[in-house]
């Protein structure tokens, strides 16, 4: 039931209301224009509301209506290929309603009420259904079969079930207790959707990015953070993951970032092909765009909106990857609202509950056995934008305590155009051991040793570099000079990857393996030749070594690599030695 109250005070996005008794997190409509807001504090007869839209011109005394519902998203067919703002209003509909600039006071349904979907039931009258169970399917896109599930908090016996074309809010099933079910269900964004069981992540998320897959893999259902100063490539990395990850669904949250970046994604994704299915990438993507100049309270909500949609697809048994760019902007929106509430600040002005909120969010990731009986997963990859690139700040530190994979972006690398500029010494993945069996079985038995060897060389290189800084590289013994050279090859030939090169942007695992193996082969032959007394200068100047630098750009990688390897054999044979 709707109860009316009135506005007492307006201070930016924070509005104090009086005259009604809402519950915490109830959604209220504020003012004559009915701006959407959420109750975040109750004190005496007054309640504080964070408003998701601009409050200019709103006066004390204007009416307030309590909807009695918490902030929810609409879940059902039609989510894919959509672009929403932070509170699930479709930006396309907003544009049609009010033009190129977002005016306030407009409501728009998350799901299209007119579109009809072809519903095929898989239960029949008399079947008993539990919460979360699948009652039918809809082909949402070419490759995604959308499973219509009973809401998690509903169960009973099917009295009537329909088949055919329906809109999302038409009743398709009636239970014996009279409950009517539609294809669409609503779920409160701040409450995780229940699952039958959480599982240990055991498969890697293949991203086609050599440094990520090869050195610091993330598991499907795992969590990863990408912190980095501005300009170090957070957004490009996130977009590469959204493009090339071998996942069924991608939820991409642009949280307090640039409008032009979202425009870029919108422009590019329909054109690009999903490497797994060959269909346009947009067909597996849900975009949430709350750019930096859009209302700050909606930015706070955007992350929850995104993860709730991700959970919904996970429950159908899909692997979902969620990118949040950037969680720092989300944390800042919490700080901004907290400071308007005049709460006691914690570190750097962030609210004391920052760390708890971050952990709650990342904990919604995971590989699960869903109520419907499927195995699904959500992988969460959060970008972090630490002020001044200083990783000791509260958001980065709170995040690192939770996530299992840390991809540390490094401004020094990006300045010399080493991309992706992920520092190989300070990054880590806690999944490497858990995934070792998978790699051995699915990539190659010697993959793990190749990788460990490469990491070892990179570590040695950094130690040797310290000496070189003091005495110059010529003063090193020859075998160490060779180590430096091989480490350089690993960095430049293997780790560097050009996201804007048509071939190099995506590197299948097989290619990653062969490339690293080829570098390792040069290393072995070079070391053997050195021992046999071949002069260092000759070993370093074999042509095939330089040729190897460019094979990753070749369309026909296999044959290009074979040409180089054959040449390498011949060149080393000529160098002779013993």
């Amino acid at each position, binding site marked *: 039931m709707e109860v009316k109250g009135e506005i*007492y*005070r*307006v*201070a930016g996005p924070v509005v104090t209301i009086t005259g009604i008794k809402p519950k915490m997190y109830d959604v209220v409509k504020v003012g004559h224009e009915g701006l959407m807001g959420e109750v975040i504090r109750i004190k005496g007869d007054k309640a504080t509301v964070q408003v998701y839209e*601009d*409050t*200019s*011109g*709103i*006066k*004390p*005394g*204007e009416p307030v209506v309590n909807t009695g519902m918490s902030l929810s998203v609409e879940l059902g067919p039609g989510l894919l290929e959509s*672009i929403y703002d932070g509170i699930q209003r479709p*930006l396309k509909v*907003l*544009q049609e309603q009010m033009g*190129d*600039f*977002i*005016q306030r006071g407009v409501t728009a349904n998350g799901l299209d009420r007119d579109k009809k979907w072809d519903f095929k039931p898989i239960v029949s009258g008399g079947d008993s259904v539990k919460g979360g169970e699948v009652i039918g399917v809809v082909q949402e896109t070419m490759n995604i079969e959308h499973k219509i599930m009973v809401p998690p908090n509903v169960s009973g016996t099917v009295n009537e079930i329909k088949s055919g074309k329906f809109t999302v809010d038409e009743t398709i099933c009636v239970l014996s207790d009279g409950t009517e079910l539609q294809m669409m269900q609503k779920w409160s964004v701040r409450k995780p959707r229940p699952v039958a069981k959480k599982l240990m992540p055991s498969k890697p998320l293949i991203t086609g990015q050599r440094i990520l897959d090869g050195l610091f893999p993330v598991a499907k259902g795992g969590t990863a953070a990408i912190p980095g*100063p501005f*300009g170090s490539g957070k*957004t490009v990395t996130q977009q590469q993951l959204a493009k090339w990850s071998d996942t069924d669904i991608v939820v991409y949250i642009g949280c307090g970032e*640039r*409008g*032009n970046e979202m*425009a*870029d994604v*919108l*422009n590019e994704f329909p054109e690009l092909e999903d490497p797994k299915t060959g269909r346009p990438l947009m067909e597996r993507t849900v975009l949430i*765009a709350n*750019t*930096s*100049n*859009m209302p*700050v309270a909606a930015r706070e909500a955007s992350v929850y909106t995104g993860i709730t949609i991700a959970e919904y697809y996970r429950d159908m048994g899909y692997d979902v990857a969620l990118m949040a760019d950037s969680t720092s902007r989300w944390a*800042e929106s919490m*700080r901004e609202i907290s*400071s308007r509430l005049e709460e006691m600040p914690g570190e*750097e*002005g962030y609210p004391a509950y920052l760390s708890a909120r971050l952990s709650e969010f990342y904990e919604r990731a995971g590989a699960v056995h869903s109520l419907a009986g499927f195995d699904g997963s959500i992988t969460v990859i959060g970008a972090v*934008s630490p*002020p*001044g690139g*200083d990783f000791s700040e509260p958001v980065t530190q709170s995040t690192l305590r939770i996530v299992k994979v840390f991809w540390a972006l490094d401004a020094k690398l*990006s*300045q010399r*155009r080493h991309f992706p500029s992920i520092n190989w010494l300070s990054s880590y993945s806690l999944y490497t051991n858990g995934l070792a069996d998978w790699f051995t079985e699915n990539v190659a038995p010697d993959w793990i040793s190749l990788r460990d060897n490469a990491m070892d060389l990179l570590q040695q290189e950094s130690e040797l570099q310290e000496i*070189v*800084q*003091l*005495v*110059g*590289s*010529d*003063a090193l013994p020859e075998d160490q000079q060779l180590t430096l050279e091989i480490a350089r090859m690993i960095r430049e030939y293997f780790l560097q990857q050009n996201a*804007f090169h048509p071939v190099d942007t995506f590197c299948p695992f097989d290619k990653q393996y062969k490339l690293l193996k080829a570098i390792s082969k040069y290393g072995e032959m070079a070391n053997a030749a050195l021992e046999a007394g071949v002069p260092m200068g000759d070993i370093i100047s074999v042509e095939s070594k330089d040729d190897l*630098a460019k094979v990753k*750009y070749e369309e026909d990688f296999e044959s290009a690599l074979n040409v180089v390897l054959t040449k390498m054999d011949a060149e080393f044979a000529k160098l002779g030695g013993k």
Partner: protein
Amino acid sequence: MTKEYKTITEVSGPLIFLEKTEPVGYGELVNINLPDGTTKRGQVLDTSADTVVVQVFEGTGGLNSESGVVFTGETIKLSVSKDMLGRILSGAGEPLDGGPRIVPDDRIDVNGASMNPYSRLPPVDFIQTGISTIDGTNTLVRGQKLPIFSGAGLPHNEIALQIARQAKVLGSDEPFAVVFAAMGITNEEAQYFMQDFEKTGALERAVVFLNLADDPAVERLITPRMALTAAEYLAYEHDMHVLVIMTDITNYCEALRQMGAAREEVPGRRGYPGYMYTDLASLYERAGVIKGKKGSVTQFSILTMPGDDITHPIPDLSGYITEGQIVVSRELHRKGIYPPINVLPSLSRLMNSGIGKGKTREDHKAVSDQMYAMYAEGRDMRGLVAIVGKDALSERDQKILEFADLFEDRFVRQGRNENRHIVDDTLRIAWEILSELPMAQLTRIDNKFIDAYHPANKAKSE
């Protein structure tokens, strides 16, 4: 009928507190009539049934509890018309050039609504500035926001003016305008800009907003919003391509901090308010191109980094919002190189969509990446040479060391009026200096580009 209230209970810094008013809207514009007959303007910051807090733009000097306060019932608006071109206005939008008031075609809320990301068109049109370090390695495109990060005493104003003079989209003569917003700069600096605008005839197609160093700091908070409103109007109503030059963002942020302190807000890093990111975003994000509209807004703002520190909150937060930055270096300036742009920390995020085949040339990105990699390594070598001497370097390293010098001397250095063409000059010079390196070092460049553009190969084929 608008009421005048004489219920001021407190004046504190730029803020006044009133009691017992009718309901007043948040953000409403306020006129304050002083006992001496002058009028000041302000804006509502906090409104409740009991108290209203107003921030006064022209400062609270001369105000007392006898002053009358009139609420206008509307938010701050700018009168806009095409006749604004060629005019010089104050930071609050009043004429300063002795001309008549602007006859408005429309009055627009200066806060501007946020652009729907769905309506944006990704910026792709290459703007040639004639400066190699920008065109070649940090390309500017139409609809981008690219600030200059500079320091006190560096020639950022010259660079900005050179860009304003030379910037154009190749092969296009679409209507073009400059909107200039001065925030807290000195009268001398403002005159320097005005003289150059007049000399080059740029003033005719410019709108100038001046908030000088001795104008009230609070006014600085609306100056850029006025300027951007004018820019959006010219771009989206009159199909013009508008270049907005805002200087100096640092002064703007200082004013923001000053206001935050006056309101007794919880300060964030270095005393700047916690919402500074959102506030700056509400300025920077007003650059862009809209689907179906002919005009565009490109932003080129100047920001002086306090103590040349790029991690200071002002450049730091700006860098997270803008699409890159052009960093002016004191070291290059001391070496006598103009423009002293250090390409290493500089970046244009939209470069890749503005260059390449059909826009500049297919090898552009590869050439740029290669120069970056070699220059970065060359600069490292300089540090090494200082310790071990040049002779301890390998032959390869010596070549790279020489490249760093060549890069600064030939690619970075250019004349104040030298307008370099991207292909005929900038890329030609790039290849000339790259050709001093051994061919095997050019690992970033596809072989087909080396075949086509390397001077050695060109000489062979000719």
